[in-house]
């Protein structure tokens, strides 16, 4: 018995994404952001996307290319302070932005991946983010219903993978990747290295292969993956 091989090309993997799709993208700043998958999506020109990502990267990097190209109708995020274009587009009404508390975004995504309908939390209950959300009393404490958040596609960046889609992340590049890699109908992972089956120690695998649908090995790391000079 042999585990299935899910390796494919960048073009074929991204080619499945169509106009109007909801796409969650891993990464927090540079670490864990799948820049090559994003670039392929920019090349493809897919429009009217709903993007779910912790942040909007910085000017000239990652998600900013999608924004510049007018491909994003809606952004679900936690912080866009490092991307002036995102703030500008939001203020001008060119893109809808839905803010979510960072850990709640992670849990909503995790819930979707875990087959749960949502979570109960009091985070943001006294703020604008709490307005209009269903309230439930648990043990005498008021909580809000935060719906699970899944997507049509997840774009993931892994340091190492194998052909079955087992994934290992490096350093702080984990961030949203493990949760997102569980929460989309089609999970596409790019990996810096794809090792033969059996070469990743089972206990070091962060994302188990059954969650992943497509594996793309990167032929080179573009400049965007490098240390940012400030």
């Amino acid at each position, binding site marked *: 018995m042999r585990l299935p091989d899910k390796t494919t090309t960048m073009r074929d993997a991204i080619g499945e994404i169509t106009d109007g799709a909801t796409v969650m993208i891993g990464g927090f700043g*540079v670490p864990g952001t799948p820049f090559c998958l994003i670039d392929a999506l920019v090349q493809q020109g897919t429009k009217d996307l709903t993007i779910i990502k912790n942040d909007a990267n910085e000017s000239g990097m990652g998600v900013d290319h999608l924004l510049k190209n007018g491909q994003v109708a809606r952004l679900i995020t936690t912080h866009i302070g490092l991307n002036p274009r995102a703030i500008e587009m939001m203020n001008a009404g060119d893109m809808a932005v839905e803010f979510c508390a*960072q850990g709640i975004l992670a*849990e909503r995504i995790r819930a979707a991946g875990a087959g749960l309908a949502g979570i109960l939390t009091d985070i943001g209950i006294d703020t604008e983010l709490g307005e209009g959300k269903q309230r439930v009393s648990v043990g005498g404490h008021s909580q809000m219903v935060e719906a699970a958040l899944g997507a049509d596609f997840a774009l993931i960046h892994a340091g190492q993978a194998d052909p079955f889609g087992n994934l290992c992340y490096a350093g*702080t590049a984990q961030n949203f990747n493990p949760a997102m890699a569980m929460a989309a109908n089609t999970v596409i992972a790019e990996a810096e290295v794809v090792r033969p089956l059996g070469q990743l120690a089972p206990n070091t695998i962060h994302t188990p292969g059954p969650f992943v649908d497509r594996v793309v090995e990167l032929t080179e790391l573009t400049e965007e993956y490098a240390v940012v000079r400030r």
Partner: protein
Amino acid sequence: MVARAARDIQSGMTVNLGIGLPTQVIEHIAADMQVCLHSENGIAGIGPAQPYDAADRNLIDAGGAYVSPVAGTSYFDSAVSFALVRGGRLDLTMLGAFQVSMHGDLANWKIPGLFTPGAGGGMELAQKAKQVIVLTTHTDRKGRSKLVQECTLPLTARGCVARIFTDMAVIDVTPKGFALCEIAAGLTTDDVIKATDAPLAVPRGKIPTF
């Protein structure tokens, strides 16, 4: 102010330093201090910041600064990182502010129509850390007090701030409102009162300086 704030970090604590001024606190923590610095992007045990040439491209804090590990550092995903915050494992967080009210309300994520960066992990940090300290300039760029009776900007969390470090003073938030604790060298009590847009309780006797 930053150096003074660092003195509030106690041995054994797990601490999160927010983006902006609070990040500078790390430079004032003694090398032999037993403390675990957490950052919400998924790291516990943050060491000194790294210059460009020595930086690891996969190792940043939530503010995007390249950091180093210490002996015993761990990395984890965002869900675990905020489990640590909401689960009550964070002893102290130091955050920036647009406004702090005399009731301890914090606003630091949205200036409608002008600058809305988003709260990032700020709501969870403000609501769930055991102690919330704010580091901020006492006034904004236009000279308006950031310490107010009621926040006019959208809230990050209600009644969360215990203490405020500014360039002018150390001020506690008590059930009765702002209370002056310490004052920056060279300033008078009147200077602080004038720059504060809310009642300020001033203790009797000499007020310590920093």
